[in-house]
Structures are given as structure tokens and as C-alpha cells.
């Protein structure tokens, strides 16, 4: 089974764990061999792995709660952004670098747009928009710094953090290739459906938002 499939299993398992549950079983290899997922986090592998996972998971939970809890929509958007970065961090710890990069590019990009929408459309009052900017900036800066630190550590010493359970050929090929490979073969069907969804969404967006239709006809 491909490396990507294994990663997905682990990634989902990780997310499941982050939600506060205890993943009892997970097919981390994707080959029918059920490993105790907690074994993957046990000290004899690496205590660091546990710590990093706990950090990412807890920040994800906290920021996700902040998204709905904050009264200021700008803070909500920012919390969402921080959350996406940490989800991307989880992907990195699972050796899904490509997914992590895509996650940041797609979601952070989208969040930026959402942020602008909030500021422009929701008529957030000027003082609400900018107060306590410094605190947020420092907090975010620290988080991003930590992120960069973790990422740079990953780059050089990935096998210290997490020893891949299976060394497969796709590991050598890199996960971008293996994702591409399964996307266009094993998961071709959902992929094609997704393209149809985009078509519907495109036409729907035009119908719902085209300007100049509601004015009375002259």
C-alpha cells in the first residue's frame, strides 16, 4: 500500500486524537496490520513526537473554539488562520509535506480573502478593527516563529522525530508523486466528481451574485 495511504491513516488518527478521544486502533500502515496508534507516540519512539503532537493538537482545539467564541469577526478569521497553520504542522509531522504546503496555500489564501470580506463587508467599527493590535501581532509572531522553528528542525532531522514505520518505494519518490499517483488512479472517481462540483459552484455563484439584475427595467 502506498505511503500516502499510510499517512492518511495516521493523519486522521492524529486528528481523532486531537479531538480528545483515544484512538484505539488504526491501520497506520494501510495494509490491514492494525497497530496500536498510541505505540506510535510512546516514549521509546520519541518523547518529542508526543510533545509536538500535543502542542499542535491543543492549539488546534483552542483556536477552533476561538473561531466561534470571539465576538470580533476579525479575531475569528485570525484564529482560523492560526488553526490552519497548526493543522499543516500536523501534516508535516506525518511526513505529508506536500499536503501541508497545499493546506497553507489554499486555506491561508482563502482566509486572507475571508479576512478582507470581514473588514470590508461586515462594517466592523474602526476601533474594533484595530485595538490591541500589538498583542495579537506578538502572539501571532511567536506562533509563527515556533512554526518556523519546528519546520526547520523537521527538514534536517526528520528521522529523529518520527521513524517511518514502513520504508516504501513511494517514500523515495516523494509524497507529491505518490499523491498524484493515487489521485489519478485509485481516487479518480471522487476526483472527477469534485470537478463537476466546481462546475456547479461556478454557475451557482454567477446566478446568485451577478450584478445589475435586480434594478427595475427601464
Amino acid at each position, binding site marked *: *500500500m*502506498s505511503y500516502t495511504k499510510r499517512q*492518511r*491513516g495516521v493523519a*486522521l*488518527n492524529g*486528528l*481523532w486524537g486531537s479531538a480528545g*478521544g483515544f*484512538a*484505539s*486502533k*488504526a*491501520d497506520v500502515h*494501510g495494509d*490491514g496490520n*492494525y497497530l496500536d496508534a498510541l505505540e506510535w507516540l510512546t516514549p521509546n519512539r520519541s518523547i518529542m513526537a508526543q510533545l509536538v503532537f500535543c502542542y499542535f493538537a491543543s492549539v488546534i482545539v483552542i483556536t477552533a473554539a476561538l473561531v466561534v467564541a470571539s465576538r470580533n469577526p476579525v479575531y475569528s478569521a485570525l484564529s482560523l488562520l492560526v488553526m490552519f497553520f497548526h493543522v499543516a504542522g500536523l501534516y508535516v509531522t506525518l511526513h505529508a509535506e506536500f499536503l501541508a504546503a497545499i493546506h497553507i496555500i489554499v486555506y491561508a489564501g482563502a482566509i486572507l480573502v475571508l479576512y478582507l470580506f470581514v473588514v470590508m463587508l461586515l462594517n466592523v467599527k474602526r476601533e474594533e478593527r484595530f485595538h490591541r493590535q500589538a498583542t495579537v501581532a506578538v502572539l501571532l509572531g511567536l506562533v509563527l516563529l515556533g512554526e518556523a522553528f519546528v519546520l526547520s528542525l523537521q527538514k534536517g532531522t526528520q528521522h529523529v522525530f518520527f521513524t517511518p514505520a514502513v520504508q516504501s518505494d513511494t517514500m523515495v519518490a516523494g509524497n507529491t508523486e505518490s499523491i498524484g*499517483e*493515487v489521485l*489519478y*488512479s*485509485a*481516487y*479518480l*472517481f*471522487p476526483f472527477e*466528481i*469534485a470537478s*463537476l*462540483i466546481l*462546475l*456547479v*459552484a461556478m*454557475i*451557482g455563484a*454567477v*446566478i*446568485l451574485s*451577478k450584478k445589475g*439584475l*435586480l434594478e427595475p427595467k427601464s
Partner: protein
Amino acid sequence: MTFDLALTGSDLLLLLPEILLTLWLCLMVCLDFSMRKITHQNLAYLGIGGVLATLVVLIWFDLTGITGTLFKNMFVLDRLAIFFKIFILLATALVMCSSIDSVRTFRFFKGEYYFLVLMSTLGMMFMASAGDLLSVFVTVEFSTFGFYVLVAYLRDDLRSSEAGLKFFILGVFAAGLLAYGISLVYGETGTLIFSDIAGTSGSYGMTIGFLLIFAALGFKIGAVPFHSWIPDTYQGAPTPVTAFLSIAPKGAAIAILIRMFYVALASFKPMWVLLFIAGSILSMTYGNIVAIAQKNIKRLLAYSGIAQIGNVLIGLAAGTKQGSDAILFYLLTYLFANLGAFAVVIGVSHIIKSDEIEDYSGLNRRSPFLAASMLLFLLSLAGVPPLAGFIGKLYLFVAAIDQELYTLLIFGLINIIISMYYYLIVVKKMYINEPLDPSPLTVSIPLKTVVYVGIAGTLLLGIYPKPFIDWAVSATLMFSNIAGPTAAAGSIFGG
């Protein structure tokens, strides 16, 4: 292990109905954009032609027994899938036919309406074939996307926009539940394919996962307690969209529910049977009691739809092959009676511009045809012999008796009486009250066609149900070996 994609011609044949409809859709969009002269009626007839062509292909599949699976069980084409695809396409053809009058009153984007209807249809056809949880998610979202836009189609109508927003928010919430449930099931079992999940042993995570998936699909079928979006959305949406929403997505979601619970979770039957018993009793009772208070015919049909879904869940509560046969047959009877009733509502509201039940007063004087057909459809929905609804309900109750679900049966019978009451209020208004405005109503030809098809279906299924029952029985042959009476359900609800 490397993946290879070896699709042969005979594999692609299984996808022929979907591919045909997709190409037809693209043709429609191109024609709509490039030919200024093409009217929306012609586009509608072109779309109906495409649906009928796809129907012919599917009937050919059904007669020659062409079945198979593709993409490692992600796409399953068996008799059950074919049944539901034919069901969905029939509903689509009738809805498109009854839309023509309403689309004429739209101020913009007339052609795109049919495109979106067909796109949703395509999504629901894929739903009927979904054989693993990933394709369940993608196809459910696909079909719902079209509906998000269709519900909010009347942009200058506040009600429609509000309905669209409510539907969208709750729909997205349901999608979130679905995705989370699927991730839990995958985390626990390591597979997404129904037939592989069947071989795994249960765990708490898996239970929570499937409960979440059930909740998300409960939103789609509008079962209590996941029904909150239904009344407002049904009232605000353009009436043909309401008609479509009230039948086709429910059918497709029921197909997924049957497949998921009968294939993937067959060994956990004693547990999920209780879930469906509760859902069925709640939906029937809540829908019927709240329907009594309704003043708007679309809201009345919305609540009646919630109650009808309660009836459908009786079949799943039985959890036997007979139960699934009964569901399939009942959905057929519901298709004709419900779409017929909505066609009458469309016809009336098109002229009197109102959906209030009060305005149906004296409908018999104004249009005996519409009043008589409405009477027939409402009686079928209530389950009066010799109409289709009676046989459908009888079949479901027999399936429940077979499993000794007497409590469920008693609730079902009480609910028939309650539903009779509010259906007959409408009948009384139509036949006994004096009309406020006695001018006669005229019905357009496409709408008349839909009403006639509804009448024909309701009478035919009621008087000569045998071929349709045989069809339903043969569509679920793969469930013949599902476990027999359940000890747990029998002892708790045995009466």
C-alpha cells in the same frame, strides 16, 4: 504497491447513464450560451429528453441485468442502484415538466435553472451508486450544491433568500458532521469501503462515527430531530424546487442509508434497529401533529413529508429484506402522490399567487380537475384504499409485524388517523367552502401532464401493484441473507 487505472470499455458501460447525462448537460449549457433564440421551454424539453434517454439506458440495464462495480467498490451499479436511479430520473422529469410555468415568471437565468436541476440529478444518481464513504461524501455534496442555488433562485424574493441561507448553513453543518463521522470510521477501521467495514469489529469511535453519518443523512431526509430546516426552506423555495427537494434527495439518501446499514453494518443490526425505531416514531408523530396547525399548503406538505419519512424508516427499523422492499415500493407511491400534490399547488399558486390553505376554498368550483386530483393525492398520502399509499403503508406494516415491532405499528396506525385529519381539512376547504373568487382556473399542458402521470401512478400502484412489488423485490435480492428477527429489538419493543 502501484495503482493502475485499467478502465475497459465494459467498465465504462456501467457509467454510461451518468456520462450520457453529463454530455447532455454540457450540450444544454453550450446551446443556452451560444444560441440567443433558444427559449427556456425548448431547453426544458431538451433536458427532459436527456432524462428520458438516460432512463431508457437504465431500463435496458435493468432488463439485461448489467451490473458491476468500478473504482474498487467506490461506484456500485447493482439492481438497487438502478432502481433508485430510475426513481430519481422519474422525479426529475416530472419536476422539470412542472417547472416550465414557474420558470416563465423568473426574471433572469431561465436556462440555468434546468441545468442546475439536472446537475443535482446527476449528483443523486451518483449517490445511489456510492459504495464507500468517500464517494458518499463527495456525491452528497455534489447533489446538494445545486439545491443551495435552486432554493435561493428568486433573488428579489426575501423569503427565497432566507430559505437559501438557512438551507445552506444547515447543509454545510451536516456536511461537517458527515466528514467528521467518516474520519472517525476511517481512523477506527482503516477502510472506507462498505463491504470491508462489514468485516471489522465494533468500537466506540466507530459507533460515534456512524451516528454522525446517520445525523448528516438525517438532515438530507429530514427525519426528526434533524428536520429544522425543512418548513422554512420548503416555504421559501420556488415551488417546483420544493417539489424536487421533497422527493429526489430523500430517495437518494435512503439509498445510501440502506446500503450503509444493510451492507457495512449488518452485524450491528440489534443496535441500529433501535435508532430507526426511535427516528421513525419521532418523525411520524412530530410531523403529523405539527402539520395540523399549518395555514400554508407548502408548510403542510413539508410536515407531511417529515411524517412520511417516519413511515419509510419503519422499513429500516424492520431491518429485513422485506423491510427494504417495502421502502422501495413506498417511495414509488410517495413519488407519484407527492409530486402530483405539488403539481396542483404549482398550478393553483401560479394563478392566485398564494399558497395559503384558506385560498383553496371552493377549488372544486373553480377547477374540478385540480380539486379532484388533489383529493386523490392527499388520500393516497394518507393511505386510503385502493390508492397506492395504502398498499405502501400495508407493506411497511407487514414488514414491522414480521419483526414483532408492535409499538412501532401502533404509532404508525395512530399517525394515519392524525394525518387523515389534516389532509381532510384541505379537502373540506376545496369541496365545501365557498370560493372567494369564483373565476375558473386554467392549467397549462405540461402541468396537466404531470398531474395525469401522478393520477395514473397513484391508481396503478394501488390497483395493480404486483409488477412494481416484483421490481422492488428483485432490486434488493442481495439482502436476502440479512439476519432474521433481532432478539434485542424484539424483547424491548415486543409489546
